[in-house]
């Protein structure tokens, strides 16, 4: 079941489009905003709300990399792995992150705090390497060390 809040937000997005199914991505993002991820059940509920079908909604949900169809941690860390960041030492950054968090890409820390994922170019190539934690962009991480990284992560309980 979608919550009244979710439904209201979806309703609002519906008014922006000539066709209800155009709000599919918004609806997925709204549900994800509230729950962290989009379950099969939520896919079906969104389909009902948009007069669509689960197969139609999931075809969209599974296409976009920022819709999570599996549970994620409280904070998703997206490390930019595109070319400028790579040149500036992204590999080192992600190895460090993996070591500090004890997880690989695609995994979530056992305490459910962080999920680590790669992401493509964050559009901040002049201050590479960069990463997103939640919706915060962190830049200039070329020479970041374990201590600074830990301090950064501390800000995300």
């Amino acid at each position: 079941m979608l919550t009244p809040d979710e439904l209201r937000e979806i309703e609002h997005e519906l008014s922006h489009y000539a066709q209800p199914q155009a709000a599919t991505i918004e609806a997925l993002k709204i549900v994800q905003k509230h729950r962290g991820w989009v379950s099969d059940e939520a896919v079906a509920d969104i389909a009902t709300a948009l007069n669509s079908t689960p197969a139609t909604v999931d075809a969209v949900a599974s296409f976009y990399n920022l819709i999570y169809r599996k549970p994620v941690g409280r904070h998703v860390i997206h490390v930019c792995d595109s070319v400028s960041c790579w040149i500036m030492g992204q590999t080192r950054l992600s190895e460090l992150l993996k070591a500090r968090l004890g997880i690989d890409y695609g995994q979530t820390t056992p305490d459910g705090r962080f999920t680590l994922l790669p992401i493509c170019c964050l559009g901040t190539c002049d201050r590479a390497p960069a990463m997103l934690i939640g919706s915060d962009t962190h830049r200039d991480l070329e020479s970041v060390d374990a201590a600074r990284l830990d301090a950064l992560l501390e800000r995300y309980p």
Partner: protein
Amino acid sequence: MARIYIDGHAFEVDPSRNLLEVVLELGQDLPYFCWHPALGSVGACRQCAVTQFRDEQDTRGKVVMACMTPCTDGSRFSLQHDDAVEMREAVVELLMTNHPHDCPVCEEGGSCHLQDMTVMTGHNYRRYRYNKRTHRNQDLGPFVSHEMNRCIACYRCVRFYREYADGTDLNVFGAHNHVYFGRASDGTLESPFSGNLVEVCPTGVFTDKPYGESYTRKWDLQQAPSVCHHCAVGCNIFPGERYGRIKRVENRYHGALNGYFLCDRGRYGYQHANAEARPRTAMLRERPGAEPQRVATDAALESMVTWLQTRTLGIGSPRASLEANQALRALIGAERCHRGVAVQDAALDDLMLQILRQGPAQIASITDIEQADAVLILGEDVSATGARVELALRQSVRQHALGLADASKVPRWQTHSVQLLGQDARSPLFVATPAATRLDGIASKTYRGAPQDIARLGQEIVHLLDYTQPRAPGLDDDTIHLAHTIAEALKSARRPLIVSGAGCASAAVLQEAGNIVTALAHAGAAPSIVLLPAECNSLGTAMLGGADLDAALTQIESGEIDTLIVVENDLYRRVPAARLDAALARLQHLVVIDALATPTTQRADLLLPAGSFAETDGTLVNYEGRAQRYFQVFQPGAYVGSGGDVRESWRWLQQAALQAQGDIGTTLDDLTRACAHGDPALAAIVDAAPNAGFRITGQRIPRQSQRYSGRTAMNAAHDIHEPRPPQDADTPLAFSMEGARVDLPSAEIPIFWYPRWNSGHAVNKFQQEIGGPLRGGDPGERLIVPGAGGSYFERPPWRPPQGLQAVWLHELFGSEELSARGPAIAERTPAAYVAVSAQTAATMAAREGDAVQVTVGDVQWPAALRIETSLPDGILGIPRGLPGVPVVLTDAAVSIQRSAS
């Protein structure tokens, strides 16, 4: 016409077609995947690469996709140019990077478009040295198997399923090289056309599940051209047999009828022919009350001939061929033959025939339906009674988008662009039926009512088209408004179509369908019509004529009859059981000839096992009045232990005649001819297919492929000698590998197979034009020409109904007798139910799923209550023919009670 150049040769071609179609039509080979003649071009697979040159001087050219390239006048192409050749090979190489190369264990192997195209491009050696991606497969229900690892992502499945058939539960998930084609979760594919995925998929992702469960390679199947027996549309099919069993049914392309697609009832309905419990031996009941015992065929015929000396009556069947019905008539005299349907059903058949013959409407083929630009469905749930019509109607509403495409100069074959232009706007389709139908989702407007109400809506439309006609009595404003909308849409359409049929068992509805086309013709429109009779040969038996089943029963009841011969008919599906029981009890002898074990065969004193559709030849007349010949796929008994005494019902009758020193002919042709001579309206049936004497350079047409294997071995467990193959005196086909394979008449092509084209896609080599008629014309002979039009049917005075009214509903899976007997269809068949509106349910304090006792007239039975919100109040919907649902007279008094639990 446009002049184009291909590898230096000039061709005059139709500029509205794309280059790929044209190349194939010219008889050349060009590989493709995502293009499909019915689905058009989307340019996804990049397989159909050719080189296009700017002008005569240009030698470098550029690579283009033939399927996305129009044949503009003066354009120059090369199929053999190095760049194009390299591209085509490379695309296959890429497609194969992830393919499992499991052809030896793949059901598609040997009949695989991917194999063919791979060979065609010359790709042999694998250079990709990395791991392949793998997928999890889904359980998609009883019809279709899923093996995603074989997927080459041509997107055809979703395009057919979603864009062509409007299904919603199959889709593509994921992105980049992790695209996945399936359902959101495991579960039965909902579309009634899901089986077409098996043929639409160019490789082995979607395969025929029942076929896979007892699999035989394509080349080891014995096949013959056949006609689907599961409704009156008469789609053309290829049943394939091995070891005395039908292994699968494939689509047999017919340019005007089924085209490339069948419904799932047609594809999977064959399993009754393989039933263990089928009558296989002649059985005789020595005396009343005794158990029937196996009897030698000679002795069986002797008893029958003796009984024929008594006062005899025959009952034919609309699910039997014209020839079977004819044989009965010839044996005992036409005047003593009844046509095997109840009085009210016979009247409907006669009425349909009358409207088709006398009315001004063209009878729409399936292709014509697809082109209709305004459609009214009056009373008929075509999704259940003639599903191929539903699929065609789904195309008809796209006429609007095609019109927009024409106006924007976007080629019609550029499918996604046409969709983009059309958006959700559709050509008008109106559905007036008692309950919701699957077509409602694409309908401009729907109307719900009892048959009398639907007839009144029809009458109002007639009035609006032709003011000389009276208004309909007692309509509310909404309905009058709807009638206006419909009348306007029909009048302003270029190709208006009226669809009705026997489904709601209402003469009034049919008459209004007839009246509407008459009124449209008066108004200057050129209407066409589809009237769907109930069964595969309803129209044929109506043309043969004869009195109805009630008349026969009356005679029996009055003690005038000693012996009754029933041919391929379960009378218990036609008249209430109580009456039938009593009548049959009055007979001395009941002879039943049938391929099914039915309540009627249980009563037989003499039961003669008949061949199924796959073991017989004959002629059926479909809803269009098209006589079509279907051919015996295999001879019962050719595989030792499979046959018993099974033979064609007409052959039993013919042998009985012989025994009685009579002569009703010896071959199928004799019966076809006799039938044709009996009635000028049937004269053309002899031309439905060439006769048994037909030869090509002195040779017959082989039912077995060039590569048929194991012929000498398959009976070796019983006899190490290779038996002589069965001989066929009835058709030009042979139970053999040897014979003629080129230039076959379209009605007698047993398989579409062509050098380099091992899958069903070989059909392009047999067509006059892609998607058009087969070479030499599509199979069958149209028997009915529309009349000059003329008078309207009169309406009886209207009386508002009293009390609960019984109305027939229909199920695609379950309502039809033959298909319902197969396990695959049975899995999709609902349990016996009756349906009422929520309001009506409330009046009896009943809920969805409650057990209820239903009483209609004298008949009482238990059912589960279904709440069908679309049904008008006061109507009891009864699913006709569904297992567990008895025969009732719908005009009888109806009551319904919750069962004491």
